[in-house]
Structure formats: structure tokens, C-alpha cells
């Protein structure tokens, strides 16, 4: 275990309430998103997250750090969410490739076709333009927050789960594969498609009238 994680685990095992309040606040938003993709209602998702934390509280003493703490917590979450989803007649198959996971992620009309000077290259009006100021800029960040939330909501569920684990919760590719029991390649396909869509949403903020 890396030191920061080992310290956190030690604090949690010792009953440090501040440490528990911290992880509860830091991880619950992503947990709610991941749970919500598996079950029918927001209330169900909340229950799954609550049950997960209860299992974490009672199971922490037995946590030996063979996986990272977040991998352990999110694995519990995904198992509980799947079980709940099945009871509600919902399944979210991660192992198969769905139609929404194939095809180009950038509008093909932005690239030159056969008979043009550079087939497969950006058209002059199709190439991405710099984002100024960057969405990382504090002032812009507040404005783009709603747009990001909308873009994430609009993603197919499996893509939403993967981008949440990778880019919101910061799990590594290997950790996501472990939690979802899918191959690293499969999770990367889902992540790529998810990021491409969110990127396109951000682009619309910078070029509202993009016509190609």
C-alpha cells in the first residue's frame, strides 16, 4: 500500500471520524453515479451507497490492503448495485460490446474525403481550435459545470460508469478493470467514447456555432 492510503486505512480502522467523514464526502458523489447506472431509481442508488458504506464500516478491520482501498470500496458498491439491479429487472452487461461503443468518435465530416488534398486529415474548418481560456480556468469552471453534468448524464450507462471511476474518482485503468470485471481494453474503449462526447460538449461551449 502506498503511504497515504496506509495512513488513511489506519485512521479509519482506529475509528477516526474525521477520516470517515472525508472519504464519505469525497467518494459518495461518484458512488451515487455508478450505483444509479445499475438500478432503477435514485432512491435505490442511495440505498446501495448507504449499504456499501455500512459494509465498509463493519469490514474495515478485515481489510488487508491486497487491493487499494478505493478498489475494495467500489467493488463492494458494484456488487451491491448489480444485485439490486437484477432484483429490479435491470442488468448492465459490461462484457459485451454494444452498438454505441463502435463507430467514429469525431464527426467524419470534419475530415477530408477521397479526392481532397489530404484524405483522412482535418478540413481547415474542422480542426479543433484552442480553448481560451481553458475550462480549467476557475472563472470558466463555474460556467462549464452545468454543461459537464449534462454531458455526463447523456452518456450511455456503461460509458458513464467508466468515466466516473477513471476521471471523477481517479481509479487507474487496472483498478477499473478489476472493479467492473472487464478487460483493460474494453474499459478503455468505453472511456475513450465517454471522453470524446464530453470533449465535444465542451467544444460546443467554445464554438457554439460550429458548422462543418
Amino acid at each position, binding site marked *: 500500500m502506498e503511504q497515504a492510503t496506509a495512513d488513511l486505512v489506519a485512521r479509519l480502522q*482506529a*475509528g477516526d*471520524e474525521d477520516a*470517515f*467523514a472525508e472519504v*464519505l*464526502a469525497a467518494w*459518495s*458523489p*461518484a458512488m*451515487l453515479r455508478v450505483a444509479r447506472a445499475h438500478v432503477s431509481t435514485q432512491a435505490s442508488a*442511495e440505498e446501495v*451507497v*448507504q449499504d456499501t*458504506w*455500512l459494509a465498509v*464500516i*463493519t469490514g474495515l*478491520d478485515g481489510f488487508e490492503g491486497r487491493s487499494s482501498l478505493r478498489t475494495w470500496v467500489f467493488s463492494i458498491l458494484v456488487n451491491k448495485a448489480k444485485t439490486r439491479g437484477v432484483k429490479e429487472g435491470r442488468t448492465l452487461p459490461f462484457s459485451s460490446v454494444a452498438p454505441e461503443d463502435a463507430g*467514429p*468518435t*469525431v464527426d*467524419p465530416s470534419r*475530415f477530408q474525403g477521397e479526392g481532397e488534398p*489530404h*484524405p*483522412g*486529415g*482535418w478540413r481547415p474548418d*474542422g*480542426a*479543433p*481550435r484552442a*480553448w481560451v481560456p481553458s*475550462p*480549467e480556468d476557475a472563472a470558466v*469552471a463555474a460556467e*462549464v*459545470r*452545468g*454543461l*459537464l*453534468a*449534462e*454531458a*455526463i448524464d447523456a452518456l450511455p450507462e456503461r460509458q458513464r460508469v467508466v*468515466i*466516473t471511476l*477513471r*476521471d*471523477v474518482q481517479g481509479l487507474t*485503468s487496472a483498478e477499473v478493470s478489476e472493479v467492473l470485471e472487464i478487460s483493460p481494453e474494453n474499459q*478503455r474503449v468505453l*472511456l*475513450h467514447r465517454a*471522453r*470524446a462526447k*464530453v*470533449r465535444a460538449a*465542451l467544444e460546443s461551449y467554445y464554438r457554439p456555432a460550429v458548422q462543418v
Partner: protein
Amino acid sequence: MTAPLDCVEVVELVTSYLDGALDDATAERVREHLSLCDGCAEYVEQMRVTAGVVAAGVEEQLDPGVRDRLLSAFRDFHRKA
């Protein structure tokens, strides 16, 4: 010698490239393309920035009642122990 990558191919390799998951030869072809193509370099940068800001769109917290119940459960569990 393999043909240079087209932009339309590079945009589909970005996530694998950023993850360091491409084989060495393909990664080198992508790097070479990016050094010559402003459009793709910008695209890669935007995908990197996107990954970094996604978290700002996920803020919804647990219901405060649930949060309080969990904090009490944590406290009770350790009081007993």
C-alpha cells in the same frame, strides 16, 4: 515502413495514447504525427483537459440524513469495538 497515421485514425488512439497503452511502434507513430499536426495536437490536449475537468460535473452529495446515519454507524461500531 508503415504509412503515416491520418488524423482520422489518430483521434481514435488518443485515450490509449494518454494511458500509455499503445505498443511502442504505434506510440511513436502517434508522437510523430502530433509533432507535425496542430489539429491533432490540439485534440489530444483537449481530451487531456476534458479528463481533468469531468469531476466538476459530478457534485451531487448523499442526502444529509443518510450521511448523518452513516457517521453515527461509524461512531457506534467503533465505540463497541
